């Protein structure tokens, strides 16, 4: 990374971010509930209603996957810029099931070919089935990122995340330079801050450190019961307290396993957590969580850096 990129003033993230799992039938507790939610939210109006409620409660950032339906949400926000003058998207890419299902049905190369633009050097290369060099991986990753970013065109997207399935797959495979490619492309092409979602915070921080990616934004499950916090609660708490990164806490309620006040109190008690992302389907829940976060953040420990 160039020193100029290092010197760019960091984007200040809001304390409260709004998540999108509830809109797309993702519920870690119950498949029935997930289905009920996907029925309710198949109408775009129902989604916008909830986003509007969050907006009215002061939540200005929507952290969302590059799910096909997010394109419709983006259209809405593009159509009414005056209504949401300060609205930000934090795209998270890709929506992995789209890729996984395509690979099962078509095989890896054919799936890649379908997901990439039909014209151009990379498409030709895939067609030829030639071995891929470093620059080719870089080119493919850049095209994939660009494809996912298309739907956010014209909207404010100051942080762009790599989804945890991809982050953790690359982490396990030790394809470390992909983190660097993502980082550089997000910065140079979109002027945005790269972020990484992971279930393996300590391990990822080691790799990002080794790559010289300084003070990365890392979004991870951070909850009192240690649900999907690989390495364990003590390792996470130590990393949050001592390591140089910008943590965003997700799954703070562990899908409802922790009561709201207890859950938020735990996260707000951790120093240096910059933001908390949560999803909710109704105004009452949004207000309750938002109020709790603001109330319990008021007395939070000061950042160490």
């Amino acid at each position, binding site marked *: 990374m160039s020193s100029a990129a290092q010197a760019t003033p960091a984007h200040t993230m809001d304390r409260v971010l709004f998540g999108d799992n509830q809109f*797309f*039938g*993702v*519920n*870690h*507790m*119950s*498949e029935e509930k*997930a289905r009920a939610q*996907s029925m309710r939210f198949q109408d775009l109006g129902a989604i916008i209603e909830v986003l509007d409620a969050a907006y009215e409660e002061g939540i200005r950032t929507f952290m969302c996957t590059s799910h096909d339906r997010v394109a419709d949400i983006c259209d809405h926000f593009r159509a009414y810029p005056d209504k949401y003058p300060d609205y930000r998207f934090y795209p998270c890419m890709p929506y992995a*099931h789209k890729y*996984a*299902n395509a*690979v*099962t*049905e*078509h*095989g*890896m*190369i*054919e799936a890649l070919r379908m997901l990439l633009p039909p014209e151009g050097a990379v498409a030709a290369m895939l067609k030829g*089935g*030639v*071995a*891929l*060099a*470093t620059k080719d*991986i870089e080119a493919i990753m850049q095209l994939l990122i660009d494809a996912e970013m298309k739907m956010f065109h014209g909207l404010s997207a100051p942080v762009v995340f790599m989804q945890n*399935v991809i982050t*953790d*797959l*690359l*982490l*396990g*495979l*030790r*394809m470390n*330079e*992909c983190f660097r490619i993502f980082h550089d492309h997000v910065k140079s092409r979109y002027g945005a801050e790269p972020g990484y979602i992971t*279930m*393996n915070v300590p*391990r990822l921080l080691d790799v990002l450190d080794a790559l010289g990616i300084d003070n990365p934004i890392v979004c991870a499950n951070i909850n009192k*019961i*240690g*649900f*999907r*916090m*690989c*390495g*364990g609660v003590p390792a996470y708490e130590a990393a949050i307290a001592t390591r140089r990164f910008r943590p965003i806490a997700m799954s703070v309620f*562990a*899908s*409802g*396993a922790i009561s709201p006040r207890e859950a938020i109190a735990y996260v707000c008690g951790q120093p240096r957590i910059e933001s908390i992302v949560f999803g909710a389907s109704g105004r009452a829940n949004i207000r309750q969580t938002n109020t709790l976060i603001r109330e319990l953040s008021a007395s939070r420990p000061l950042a160490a850096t």
Partner: protein
Amino acid sequence: MIRTAMVGLGKMGLSHLAIVRAHPDLDLIAGCDATAYLTDILSKHTGLRCYSDFDRMLDSEQIEALVVATPSKLHAPMVRKALERGLHVFCEKPFVLDVADGERLVDLARSKSLVTQVGYHYRFVGAFKEAARLVRSGALGEIHHVRAEAYGPVVLRRKGATWRSAKNEGGGALYDYACHAIDLVNFIVATPTSVDGVVRHSVFSRDVDDEVYGTFRFPGGASGQLCVNWSDESFRKMSTKISVWGTRGRLTADRQECQLYLRETHEALPGVDAGWTVRYTTDLSDEVWFYLRGEEYSAQIDYFAESVRTRRLDGENSFASALDTDRVVAMMLGAAAPKQGAVAPPPVARTVWSRLFG
């Protein structure tokens, strides 16, 4: 460290590769796949020693364990070579396409005291483990019916050209989806001894089944139903559910939760009230050292490593256990007789297990 190699670096293979490489006790020293662009990337970018030829890898590398994640039709010959060389083997599901092959491999592994495991990862999902525990406790009374379901959005239109859509290569919803559901029946309830009313239909695929239905029979009169469809777009991803009915209650489990209904309290489940008891994945999942896609994928690899370390030969998902699932698949294909000796004599006195085991 257990010196380990992998063969097959496709979709499941890459997931296994990531998990194996992250495991503190497994030293992944080589990988093998016929696809050059994949091995090129892995060797150049991750330092993995890669081979395109399986035999060459076995000849060249000193390894103790092998992970097999190739297309299903290649499992049997590759597993045989690995066992002959004295390697412990983790093999992706389904184990084999021909039960006779499987029997030989089970015997071979036994004769060499080698650790074997097949990737039926649902046995490592907290909610399904809980379902198995509840059924084994006897609290549901005599089990008289089980229903196993698996739905998902894999084949949604008339095309597809991978081995998963090829007949005789272990493609189709039967091998890809139904195997999991059948294995869960074996795990949570018992292995059916006969199958009837089998329906295998194509919805979109040209050569293979996209939906599979059938009725399972257990020696004591209990029955089961299998409902599998991988052409159902209403599901976001594969969704598998098992329901078990007994004389004292019922349960339903999926990846997220285990719902139990007890007609009355039972001494085998102290502290569990009559009526509904629901336990969720947050409560039922054990922490894993590395997470990718689900705890179960890591947990099964960790279990394999532990089996190799401790020479556990009769662990979960052994070849013998997975072969039971292959036998049911064979019955569904109408190509095999029931397992020898599996049909028990008529029951003398009815017990909790009467309808399952006779």
